[in-house]
């Protein structure tokens, strides 16, 4: 046992030394996440604001002006210009100068106040950006609801009064966009850093030829994986802690739940990335290939993470697939702990899922390592197994043939058996 610890420790020290020699990489691994979080957190999260609006006012009454003023007063929209015709406004939208067109029909004021009529306002939003059009439409609907509410209040008769909605936003009183975006960044940054470092571990050694040397050391398979995994785990945890500090101090978003829980849940998350990374680095021949695998995987995981589309809104197949996306579970945990103050009681399922993913991937990585470090060896082993199988069939057939002819005749099959496995094997223990 002490030997195992000793050997693993040696590998950990070597990995850390290697990392500390590449100053640029070390800086990027430790400070990059902070810088990126500061930069992106500061730059985004304003949400959708001040969408340029063109008004086609065909009514020109006090009512239509009131509508326009109310639209202009919202945070989301601002009246950039007036157009004489819809066609003109459409041209501006085509070249991207405006995002929304509001068309107030003639006799809008009349229809609004007449009891049996209804005024119809047309809103055309630039659908080439879905978020823009959703926000623009929701905002005009809010404004319309306000106007109707006021109207109802003015017209209120004795028989009934209007219903008023009182909104309370939990977890985020002022409906600030930043917490949502910043927690996603925290998850994605921890994800990319740990996955990259893990994925380059074996490939780099192979490309530089030092893998051969590692293979002749007494390091066992598990020790090899553990020694490679520990520094990455350390980096992941340190990054998570540093970034949480920045989020709390700089962005003033308090951690409502337990920080310890978040760090504990980060462990299986990083382990899952190490599992993926080790697997990738075991099947790629060059670091370039490893990166390409990482990138394809990262795209899939980010897609399924619920960061662009909530997991519940995805089409069936992707919703099922998203349950094996570790990023998705991690984002649920990060947002749960930091923003909702959730405890183990409501997060245990996500934690369990992360643990399951990490365990499965580590098992796969261990199995892959068992098959030998060379990417070709899997194919070679299968070939050898196949040949052995065919040989034994020939042998049996030949023997049967020999039995039938009473021990005479029946050509003996030519046996070309190779040694089943010629690689230097890495074994655990002494």
């Amino acid at each position, binding site marked *: 046992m002490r030997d195992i610890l000793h050997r693993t420790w040696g590998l950990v020290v070597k990995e850390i030394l290697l990392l500390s020699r*590449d100053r640029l*990489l070390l800086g*990027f691994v430790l400070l*990059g996440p902070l810088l*990126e979080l500061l930069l992106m957190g*500061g*730059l*985004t999260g*304003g949400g959708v*604001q*001040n969408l340029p609006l063109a008004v086609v006012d065909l009514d020109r009454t006090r009512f239509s002006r009131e509508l326009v003023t109310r639209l202009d007063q919202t945070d989301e929209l601002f009246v950039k210009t007036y157009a004489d015709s819809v066609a003109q406004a459409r041209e501006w939208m085509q070249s991207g100068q405006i*995002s929304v067109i509001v068309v107030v029909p003639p006799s809008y004021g009349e229809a609004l106040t007449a009891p049996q*009529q209804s*005024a119809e*306002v047309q809103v055309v*939003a630039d*659908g*080439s950006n*879905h978020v823009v*059009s959703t926000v623009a439409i929701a905002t005009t*609907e809010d404004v319309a609801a*306000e106007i*109707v*509410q006021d*109207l109802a209040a003015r*017209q209120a008769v*004795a*028989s*009934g*009064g*209007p*219903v008023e*909605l*009182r909104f*309370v*936003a939990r*977890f*985020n009183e002022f*409906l600030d*966009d930043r*917490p949502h975006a910043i927690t996603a*960044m925290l998850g994605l940054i921890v994800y*990319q850093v740990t996955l990259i470092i893990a994925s*380059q571990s074996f490939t780099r050694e192979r490309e530089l030829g030092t893998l051969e040397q590692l293979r002749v050391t007494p390091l066992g398979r598990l020790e090899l994986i553990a020694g490679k995994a520990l520094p990455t785990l350390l980096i992941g945890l340190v990054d998570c802690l540093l970034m949480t500090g920045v989020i709390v101090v700089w962005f003033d978003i308090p951690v409502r739940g337990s920080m310890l829980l978040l760090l504990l849940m980060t462990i299986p998350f990083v382990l899952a990335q190490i599992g993926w990374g080790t697997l990738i680095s075991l099947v790629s021949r*060059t*670091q370039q*290939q490893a*990166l*390409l695998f990482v*990138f*394809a995987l990262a795209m*899939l995981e*980010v*897609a*399924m993470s619920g960061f*662009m*589309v*909530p997991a*519940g809104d995805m089409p069936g197949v992707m919703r099922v697939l998203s349950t094996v996306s570790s990023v998705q579970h991690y984002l649920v945990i990060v947002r749960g702990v930091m923003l*909702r103050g959730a405890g183990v009681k409501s997060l245990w399922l996500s934690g369990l899922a992360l643990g399951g993913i990490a365990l499965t991937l580590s098992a796969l990585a261990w199995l892959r390592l068992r098959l030998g470090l060379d990417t070709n060896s899997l194919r070679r082993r299968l070939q050898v197994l196949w040949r052995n199988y065919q040989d034994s069939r020939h042998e049996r057939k030949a023997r049967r043939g020999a039995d039938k002819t009473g021990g005479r005749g029946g050509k003996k099959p030519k046996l070309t058996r190779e040694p089943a496995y010629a690689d230097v094997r890495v074994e655990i223990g002494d």
Partner: protein
Amino acid sequence: MSVRRFISILLKEYRHILREPRTLWMVFLSPAFVLVALSAIFTSGSSRIDLALWDQDRTPLSRQFAGTLSSDADFSIGHVSDYEEIEGLLVERRIDAAVIIPPGFADTVQRGDTASVQVILDGVDTLIAGQATGSLLGHAAHFGLALSRQLSLPSVPLQIHPRSAYLPNEAERDSMIPGLVPIVFSLPVIAAALALARERETGSLEALIATPVRGLEFLGGKLIAYVSAALGGLLPVWLVATVLFGIPLRGSPVLLVALAADFLLASVGMALFIGNLVRSQQAATVIALFVFFVPGFFLAGLIDPIDTTDLASTIFSYALPSTHFVTICRALFLKGATLTEIWQPALALLVLSAVWLGLGALTFRKRMH
């Protein structure tokens, strides 16, 4: 600058890309593959809002109010009966909002007073919270009006007819797919940064130093090899968008190819610049992902439009080639724009490619450290 040496470097790079099926696949086909993966998450329908309803009043009128909410197909409503349950559901993300009809709701309304209905929103995802607010406000206003005009026909005095231009069925997917095109091309671009860092790390750059190949020829060969390979990948991407997802390219294909080439020149220029700065492929990977990956989603205007009121945000966003290409792809695919309508982002790309290529060429040194 010798054309022969340039071509021999170009051929060498092509051989690097071609000889490994995995690299070839990743450089040439991965954009289409990633596009399929990223696009598959978007449904063509609108998103549903999960609502918890607590009717404390239990009168015909409160049920009528609940009825107007449940008639909306966008709401999926569950009934609850205390605050703790609501709090639990909110913490576990099972609902987006809770509507609480107070006791005495019907009495208050019939007395002619204003009844307050409480709505508790999950404030974490502000986009969903905003959607929920908008639809709930609309229902409440219409309900109130229907009551105040009790005997007359409850016609709605103000109706909004929303329409998304360029998107007849308002499908989120249709607007996202063209916007994702720049991101899916990050892979071949990063591959170029790695190709450079790899020569340095494995020492083959040292061997090249001994040859008469000049720095610019070497860099140019790498650049053209990766840009052209990635440009070839545009065809599968275009096929995926039009055939698989049914989004026709309304603009000119020639313009798309030309601007894509411009975008790739700028991005690969940026990647080569990164490749010049670093010593190991690992570092190149980390930096390239920091520059291309997360900002591609957050800063390039893919989801939230660029906040032009903030100077720093504007500068950073516009320094990224993807920002301009997102605008271009959306305009070309969805709006059918012509060059006169998108000359601004096109020009910006041209300037960016000149700047990044220039920086790449200036920082490149044909020697070891």
